[in-house]
């Protein structure tokens, strides 16, 4: 993996929200590199900061949230000479620091064209009063500058790309004439029409039923290849992850606790939270036995977190887990985890049986 393969580098990002006079620390010093052309899945339970993280990439953080430290370096944008302080240069080349973007004028250079996003609920993410054609067309007109007949042609071709049958007729229809799955295709078409370099999919299949889920995921894979996209998936559905992701980042309480190739995360997880997450998969449950569930609740992010955020819910926690925050330990060049268990001085702790089983299956498979 060469260095200039990085399209996005998030460094020590810290995001806070002020809520009724108190401050919530939603993202706690998170670092993550995203590689050009990969599909990265960010998994974690509700409220761990997945969506907050991604809203930062597109400048849609709620107005009471703010970045107080760190940078989001995006390599792939030309420098805007009128605002030179938003840009910088490092070992990967010229970057735009999205963490410094404040004005709408600056964000309009990023949104759509560089980073685009697919929202969770297709039933509400389309304007009910505009035709599908007009809504896809708006994106094309903005980013590709087409007008009139050429615009319509471009819209129809995108509609074909996302497999909407009979696009000429569908073009003139309104969102209420589409089913949920079809609407999600329209939303995807709008995102693709912007020609983004990074496509963020915020739980794109959660609101759809299982058969449609599979179709939409397949479509996304196809489009990723065709348009050479870098895709970031936010999900808590590990089935989706296994289906589509090259790399997986496991998030817990505003930080990435484990990061690795999909096979490494599924077959050789190292962080106790990843163990717990995988153990609670219904597919791994044994018939007749109660399904595993993680005890306790995520930490209160209004108060500072000491040590490993997962320690209070972790039956295998070490004493140091409650005192000091673990650094990342490399498991392989592509796999790292933030747990003291990987420290050479740590006692040998066996992962749960279910994980050991996965491990041996993966080993046998490889």
């Amino acid at each position: 993996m060469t260095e200039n393969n990085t399209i996005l580098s998030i460094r020590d990002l810290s995001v806070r929200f002020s809520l009724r006079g108190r401050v919530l620390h939603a993202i706690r010093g998170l670092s993550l590199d995203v590689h050009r052309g990969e599909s990265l899945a960010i998994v974690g339970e509700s409220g761990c900061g997945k969506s907050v993280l991604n809203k930062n990439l597109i400048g849609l953080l709620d107005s009471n949230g703010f970045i107080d430290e760190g940078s989001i370096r995006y390599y792939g944008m030309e420098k805007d000479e009128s605002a030179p302080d938003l840009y910088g240069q490092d070992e990967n080349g010229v970057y735009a620091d999205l963490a410094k973007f404040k004005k709408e004028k600056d964000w309009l250079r990023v949104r759509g064209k560089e980073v685009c996003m697919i929202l969770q609920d297709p039933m509400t993410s389309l304007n009910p009063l505009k035709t599908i054609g007009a809504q896809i067309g708006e994106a094309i007109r903005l980013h590709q500058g087409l007008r009139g007949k050429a615009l319509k042609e471009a819209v129809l071709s995108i509609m074909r790309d996302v497999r909407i049958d009979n696009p000429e007729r569908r073009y003139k229809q309104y969102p209420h004439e589409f089913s949920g799955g079809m609407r999600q295709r329209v939303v995807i078409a709008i995102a693709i029409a912007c020609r983004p370099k990074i496509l963020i999919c915020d739980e794109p299949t959660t609101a759809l039923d299982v058969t449609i889920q599979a179709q939409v995921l397949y479509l996304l894979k196809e489009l990723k290849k065709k348009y050479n996209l870098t895709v970031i998936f936010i999900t808590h559905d590990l089935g989706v992850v296994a289906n589509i992701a090259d790399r997986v980042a496991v998030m817990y309480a505003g930080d990435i606790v484990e990061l690795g190739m999909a096979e490494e995360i599924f077959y050789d997880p190292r962080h106790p939270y990843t163990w717990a997450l995988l153990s609670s998969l219904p597919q791994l449950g044994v018939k007749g036995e109660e399904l595993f569930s993680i005890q306790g609740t995520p930490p209160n992010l209004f108060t500072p977190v000491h040590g490993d955020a997962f320690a209070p819910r972790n039956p295998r926690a070490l004493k140091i887990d409650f005192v000091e925050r673990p650094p990342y330990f490399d498991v392989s060049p592509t796999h790292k985890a933030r747990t003291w268990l990987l420290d050479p001085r740590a006692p040998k702790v066996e992962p749960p049986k279910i994980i050991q089983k996965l491990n041996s299956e993966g080993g046998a498979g490889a």
Partner: protein
Amino acid sequence: MLKYLGKRLARSFITLLIILTIVFVLMRQMPIEGYFPNFDKMTNEQIQNGLALMGMDQPMPVQVLNFFKNLFLHGDLGTSRIYRNNVPVTEILAPKIPVSIQLGSMALIVALVVGIPMGTLMAKYKGRLFDHIGTAFIVFIQAVPAAVYYLFIQLYGTELLGISLIFDEENWVSWVLPVFSMSLGNIAYYAMWLRRYMVDESTKDYVQLAKIKGVSSNRIMFTHIFRNAFVPMAQYIPTSFLNTVVGSIYIESLYSIPGMGGLLVDVVKKQDNNMVQGIVLVFACVGVVGLIFGDLLMVLLDPRISFGSKGGNR
């Protein structure tokens, strides 16, 4: 669409018939003393003669039928007895209706032209100075009794414009103050609801998606949010027009405008049956037409609403 309109009009016509019948029958239940200015001095015979002259000695269904026969065959609403003795109702109303309708229409236009941009800007600058000023205005208009500021407008407005306190149909300047006064309530109403609907809409997912697409917030405001926020308001506009016309009693009396705003109350008090029926008919027509327009407007603005019952929409 034409078929729907036809059906709709036919139904409205029946509604009008029902309204008129009910009003007609109710008015006939009033004590007969009211029909004669000098009832105390009349003999029983004179009273019976008088009633017979008005056709009121006949059974109720016959009276109703006669009323409708006169209305549809001769366009005759009867004659006024007390308001202006022996003058046909149509003759009394004819000059008054256009004045009221004109005043009402102008007030409505002013309210739309001022209220809609005001609501839009308040939503756009939500929580900022303009929003606060607008909110203060709305609260003032809604909380202070209209009579208070109507009087102020009349006293200081006429002085400022250098015109007489009394309305003069020929002089356009004298239209300004009544129209302005009449539109104030609706300006506040439109601005308040539009702001509210726009603020609601702006948190919707489709607005988020438009932002993600890279559409500027000004464009989103006008091309996405405004239309969505305007749909729920549209259906009330014709109704508020009606309210403006009916509710102009005080303004019409302040400026001595020869409209029909105050007329209804007046003739009800005087128990002038034929006049009441005539005015109710006019108001009911305006109301029914207003409702039809409101629905038409909704259909034009919102593709999810369609004519007829089997639109096939979810």
